[in-house]
């Protein structure tokens, strides 16, 4: 009984990210003697959303195989957030148009990423990095870092909540459920898992490898676009550096969440666990009042501890 439970636990490595999240949350409220327990969760839920959205895109990309990673996420967030706000021009009536424009910009970035990888045969890590420079420059040239307020409706939506549960969190959970189903049970989900394990075998199993790779990079960029819109709405306008923390952040939540870095295995719930964990970890250390150095060291060690306890990938022969 105990053994089977242990084995189950081992097969669901993403559990550990939730365990970690709950542990740091408990540590935090133990320190504050219970003060703000609920409010911290509310804050964690809303900020985790942004990480979850881009993390999901990153997860899809990472799942398509070793070496696949999207480093253009931060720049895409910036560009698309800027495009959206500029097109919306603080008017609710232009909301839809702004969203469409931002999504289109995202799709273009994704398609270009894919083009560099496929047709110029540039390794993804460098292709998306180079792309991110171009995208960042476009964002600068487009708006030069001026801060445009979101339209009131977007502002209200992104900051609204019901009984302490942020609306965007509800929406993002729904989104995660849908992605979970897609990854677990759709043809696309199976296909990217196959491609990630062995793209040649996938091709020989009649999977349209390149079409799905294309879709994946476009999806990742479009999710960055959505994150850009929401983030710009949430924080009162776009900024040139608004996406920078998602460069490593998006990768971290994916991997801590139990997705295989070598590709082929995705874990959607893990992203949530890891995103909450990362937010709560920073909150805990801030609450303890540790100095910046100590905070950084503790962050690193705790991340390693969680992943080490969860254990690595088993080898089966």
């Amino acid at each position, binding site marked *: 009984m105990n053994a089977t439970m242990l084995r189950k636990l081992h097969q669901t490595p993403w559990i550990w990210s939730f365990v970690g999240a709950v542990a740091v949350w408990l540590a935090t409220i133990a320190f504050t003697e219970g003060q703000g327990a609920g409010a911290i969760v509310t804050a964690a839920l809303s900020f985790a959303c942004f990480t979850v959205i881009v993390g999901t895109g990153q997860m899809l990309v990472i799942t398509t195989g070793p070496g696949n990673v999207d480093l253009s996420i931060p720049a895409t967030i910036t560009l698309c957030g800027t495009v959206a706000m500029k097109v919306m021009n603080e008017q609710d009536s232009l909301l839809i148009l702004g969203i469409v424009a931002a999504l289109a910009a995202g799709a273009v970035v994704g398609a270009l990423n894919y083009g560099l990888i496929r047709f110029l045969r540039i390794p993804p890590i460098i292709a998306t990095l180079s792309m991110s420079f171009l995208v960042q420059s476009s964002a600068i040239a487009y708006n030069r870092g001026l801060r445009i307020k979101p339209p009131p409706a977007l502002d209200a939506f992104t900051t609204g909540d019901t009984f302490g549960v942020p609306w965007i969190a509800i929406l993002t959970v729904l989104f995660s459920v849908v992605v979970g189903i897609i990854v677990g049970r759709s043809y696309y989900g199976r296909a990217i898992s196959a491609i990630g394990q062995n793209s040649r075998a996938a091709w020989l199993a009649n999977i349209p490898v390149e079409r799905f790779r294309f879709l994946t990079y476009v999806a990742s960029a479009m999710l960055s676009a959505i994150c850009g819109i929401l983030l710009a709405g949430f*924080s009162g306008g776009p900024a*040139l550096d608004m996406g920078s923390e998602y460069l490593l952040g998006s990768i971290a939540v994916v991997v801590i969440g139990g997705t295989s870095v070598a590709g082929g295995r995705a874990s959607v719930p893990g992203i949530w666990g890891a995103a909450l964990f990362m937010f709560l970890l920073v909150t805990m250390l*801030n609450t303890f*009042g540790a100095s*910046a150095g100590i905070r950084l060291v503790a962050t690193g060690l705790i991340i390693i501890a969680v992943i080490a306890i969860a254990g690595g990938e088993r080898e089966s022969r």
Partner: protein
Amino acid sequence: DTKDKKIALSNNYAGNSWRQAMLKSWDKVTKQAVADGVVAAADPFTTSENQVTEQAAQIQNLILQGYNAIVVNAASPDALNGVIKQACDAGIVVVSFDGIVTEPCAWRVAVDFKAMGKSEIEYLKENMKDGGNLLEIRGLAGVSVDDAIHSGIEEGVKENSQFKIVGSVHGDWAQDVAQKAVAGILPSLPEVKAVVTQGGDGYGAAQAFKAAGRPTPLIIMGNREDELKWWKEQKDANGYRTMSVSIAPGVSTLAFWVAQMILDGQQVPKDLTVPFLRIDQDNLEKSLETTEKGGVANTEYSLEDAKKVVAGAK
């Protein structure tokens, strides 16, 4: 006479609105100067990341290109000294500003960041007689400006025991990071009377307080237009009082004129100080008017201004 002299701007980061405003001011003032025949060229160069090594390589290339003067906003006060020395040895005038360098052969157009931090507490002392709890939003750990402003604030708090810093977070000078950090720590804090910042994080802090359903404290602003606008709204609605302080992005143009004066053979002391740009309750409206929408409150400098600063330092 400097009409065939070439000046370069070496900038280490362009990824925020302050730097963009700085580049824009440079562009505006130096284009005019070139058109007027004051100097032959004034080219701006920027690297993508806030990195010492990239900027060092950049300056070395500027040396190769034969510029007569290099105006530097440095990524690190000490770590560029090697290359600054190389530039000086090649006979190039180096003027640093904002992010200054400690290499003795270079000129410094400095802002006293420590004093800026301290001025925040001094303002609070006058406007918050019975003191209270403070939340500090810092910048990027390990960077000198963050340390300087922080030590000013720390000193101020030490001298005024009615204030107590109950929470301190690093916002990395990025609005969303700051907002996130504040939102996380806020629920665990007792009542916060005021927020001291390093520039540009005020609006995000206000949002975080609103989201947490806490009363809005006195938030020191950082001259961004959205901050000023928010302040104005609060002021009109309930007489909200605060102040806003930051370094004006146009200081790049001051450094330009200083470089030009040195090339012109004038005597300029190595250390110059520029006052920081401060906005108060009474000049809020005026500053808001002159600030570009979504930008940063700014002043650009002319040759006369530069001469005044130099004369003041002598």
